[in-house]
C-alpha cells in the first residue's frame, strides 16, 4: 500500500477560543471501513465536516489520493467540488433527503453532474436528443441498481419523506453511492436504527466496501456496528486522537477505557 486513500495530517479546527479538533492525524485506506469514535463533543463531526469541506480547517492538510495517483488537497477545495471532482460522498447525522421528491428522483439528483454534461448543460436535454435519452436511461438503471440493493424498489415512486426511518438512512447511503465516490463518509449511520436494521446496515456497508472499491469512513456511537465491521478504529477525546488501531486493540487501550468509563483513583 503506497499511498493511503485519505491522509489527514495535523488537522486543527478552532472556533474562536475553542479548539474542537486539535492536531489530529490519521489515514483511511482503500477497501477499509474506518470508524471514528469518541464521547460526545470529542470533535468527530467537526473533523468530518473538515474532510467533506463544510468547514475550512484552521490548520492541517487533508490529502485524498485516487487509484490513478491523482491527489486532491481537500482543505483547499469548495464543498461541492470535493464531491464533484475528488469524489468524496457523505451522509448526515440528521438525515438530509429531498423529502418532497421521490426515491428515484433523489437518486437521480445524485447523478446531476454526469447528467448535466450528458444534456450539454440543458441544450441537448431541451430537444431530448438521443445522447441525453441514453444518459437518462443509464442513470435510471443505476438508481434502480441501488434501489434493488437496499430493497426499496417497490417504493421508487413514493416521496422520500414517506419512507420509514431505516429506509431513509439506507436511501441516503444509496444516494451518496450514486455519485460514484472513492471515499464514503457516514455520520452516525446507525443512529435510531433497531438491532435488525443495524444488522442490515452492517451487511450493506461490508458489501459496499468489498464490491465497490470504496473506502468507508464512519462516525458511530453504536459499538455493535463499530466493533463488528470496522477494520480500523480511531478514538477522539476532547479534540485529540487518543487511540488508533484495530477494534480489538482499541477496545483494550487504557486511554480509551479512561475516556469512556473514567478511571478509578487509588
Amino acid at each position, binding site marked *: 500500500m503506497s499511498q493511503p486513500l485519505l491522509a489527514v495530517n495535523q488537522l486543527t479546527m478552532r472556533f474562536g477560543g475553542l479548539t474542537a479538533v486539535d492536531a489530529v492525524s490519521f489515514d483511511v485506506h482503500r477497501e477499509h471501513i474506518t470508524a471514528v469514535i469518541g464521547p460526545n463533543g470529542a470533535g468527530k463531526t467537526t473533523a468530518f465536516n473538515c474532510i*467533506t469541506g*463544510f468547514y475550512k480547517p484552521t490548520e492541517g492538510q487533508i490529502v485524498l489520493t485516487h487509484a490513478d495517483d491523482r491527489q486532491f488537497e481537500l482543505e483547499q477545495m469548495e*464543498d*461541492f*467540488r*470535493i*464531491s*464533484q*471532482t475528488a469524489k468524496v*460522498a*457523505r*451522509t*448526515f447525522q440528521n438525515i*438530509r*433527503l*429531498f*423529502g*418532497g*421528491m*421521490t426515491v*428515484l*428522483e433523489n437518486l*437521480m*439528483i*445524485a447523478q*446531476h*453532474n454526469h*447528467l*448535466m454534461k450528458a*444534456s450539454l*448543460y*440543458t441544450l441537448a*436535454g*431541451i430537444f*431530448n436528443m438521443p445522447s441525453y435519452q441514453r444518459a*437518462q436511461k443509464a442513470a*435510471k438503471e443505476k438508481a*434502480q441498481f441501488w434501489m434493488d440493493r437496499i430493497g426499496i*424498489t417497490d417504493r*421508487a*415512486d*413514493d*416521496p422520500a*419523506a*414517506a419512507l420509514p426511518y431505516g429506509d431513509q438512512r439506507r436511501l441516503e447511503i444509496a*444516494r*451518496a453511492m450514486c*455519485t460514484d465516490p472513492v471515499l464514503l463518509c457516514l455520520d452516525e449511520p446507525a443512529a435510531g436504527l433497531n438491532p435488525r436494521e443495524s444488522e442490515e446496515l452492517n451487511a450493506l456497508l461490508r458489501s459496499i466496501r468489498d464490491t465497490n472499491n470504496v473506502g468507508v469512513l464512519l462516525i458511530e456511537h453504536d459499538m455493535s456496528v463499530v466493533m463488528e465491521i470496522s477494520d480500523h478504529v480511531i478514538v477522539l477525546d476532547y479534540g485529540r486522537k487518543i487511540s488508533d488501531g484495530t477494534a480489538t486493540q482499541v477496545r483494550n487501550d487504557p486511554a480509551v477505557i479512561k475516556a469512556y468509563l473514567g478511571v478509578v483513583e487509588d
Partner: protein
Amino acid sequence: MSSQLPTLPALLPMLKRSAIATIIAFFLFLPTLGIKTAASGGVDGLFLQYRWSGLAIACGLIFVARMAMEIFGKKQDGTSKPAAAPSALVRFFGSAKIAKTVGPVLLVFAIVFPFLPFSDRYILDLGILIITYVMLGWGLQIVVGLAGLLDLGYVAFYAVGAYSYALLSIHFGFGFWMCLPLAGLLAATWGVILGFPVLRLRGDYLAIVTLAFGEIIRVVLLNWRGFTGGSNGLSSIPRPSFFGLPFNQEPGGFAATFGLEYSSMQRIVFLYFLILALAIFTFFVTGRLRRLPIGRAWEALREDEIACRSLGINTVNTKLSAFAIGAMFGGFAGSFFAAKQAFVSPESFNFMESATILAIVVLGGMSSQLGVVFSAIAMVGGVELLRQLQFLKVIFGPDFDPSQLRLLLFGLAMVLMMLWRPRGLVSTRTPTVFLKDEKTVSAAMISQGRG
C-alpha cells in the same frame, strides 16, 4: 354537525367568545368604517365625520356570524379541522389525469377564443392581459416555485424586457422578432446581476433585496431622462408587423395584401396569437426544464441546499440559472408588452405588478403550471369582472363603484385561500421521473424553500 341548539350553560362561553370577536372587530373597524374625513368646502378644510350606525352594523354582523359559527360550526372543542380532507374540487385539480385533459381543452379554447361571437375588442384585450400574466407566472414559478427563492422584484425583468424592445426598435430600428431574444438575453443578464449579491441571502432578507432591486430598476427608469424619457416614458414604439406586413390601411398592409377589409381588430387578433404563441413556448420550455437535470437541481435546492452541495451540485450556478431563466421569460413578456402598447413608462412596472405575479404563482400552486393558468384568470379576469358589476348600482345607489371593492375582495380571496388551500390551488407535485407509476407528491411532504 349538531342540529340541536345548545343549552344555556354551553351557550355562555360561546357568547363570551363572540363578544371578544366583536370587540376586536370594533377596534379594527373604528378607524376604517367609523371615522371618515370629509371636506367641508368652507375654510375649515377637513373635518371628521363619525359613522356610528355603519360601525354598529358591522360589529353586529360580526357578532351574529361568530355566534353562527359557534353554534353550527363543527369545531366545538377548539381544535381546527384537519387540513388533509381534499374536497372534490381539489381532487379534480390535483389529479394528474385531469390535468392532462384540462390542459388541451384550455389550449383549444384559447385558440378559438378570438373567433367566438362574444369576442369583441375589450374581451380580446383582456385575454391578452391574462395570457401575459400566465406567461409571467410561469417564468416566476421557476424562481419561486421550483428553486424556492422568494423574488418580490420580478417586475424589474418585465421592465428590462419592455425597455429593451422600446430602445432597440426606436434607436436601431430592430424588428420585434430580433428584439425578442435580445430582450430575453438582457433580462437574463440582469437576473444574474441580481442573483450574485443575493446568493447568500435567504427568506426575508432575500425578499427585501429583490424588492429593492425591483424598485431600483423603476427609479432608474424614472430618473435617467436622457435614455429612458423619465416619467414621460417612450412613445411611438414601432408596432410588430405580420412578417413585414404592417396592420394599416395602406396598400402594402396586412388587409390589402390578403384582400381583406381593413379592421383594427386584425392587429388585436394578431397580438393575441403572438402572446399565445409566446406563452405556449414558455409552457413547453419551463415544463421541459423541470424534467431535466437542471430543473431537478432547482427543486433539490428548494428541498435542501446543504444536501445539494454534498452531492457535488454547484449551488451558485444552479441559483443563478434559476434567476436568469426566470428573468428571461419576464423579458420576453416585457418585450411583448412594449410592442402591444407602443408606449412604455415606469408607471407600468411598480411593485403592485410584482405582487400580482407572485400572488398568481402562490395561489396557483408552487409547481403546477395549470394552477397558474387558473389563478391568473381569477386574479386578472376577476378584477375585470368587478367592473362589470354595474347592476349593483340598483341596490347600493348610483354612487356605488364596484371596482373600488377590488382590493377588498382581493384581500378576502387571499384570506380564504390561506384558510382552505394554503399551498395553492394545485398543491401537489408531479415527480419529474418515475419508474412504474406516476404518483403525485402531497403538499405536506414538499419543502417550501427557505429563501
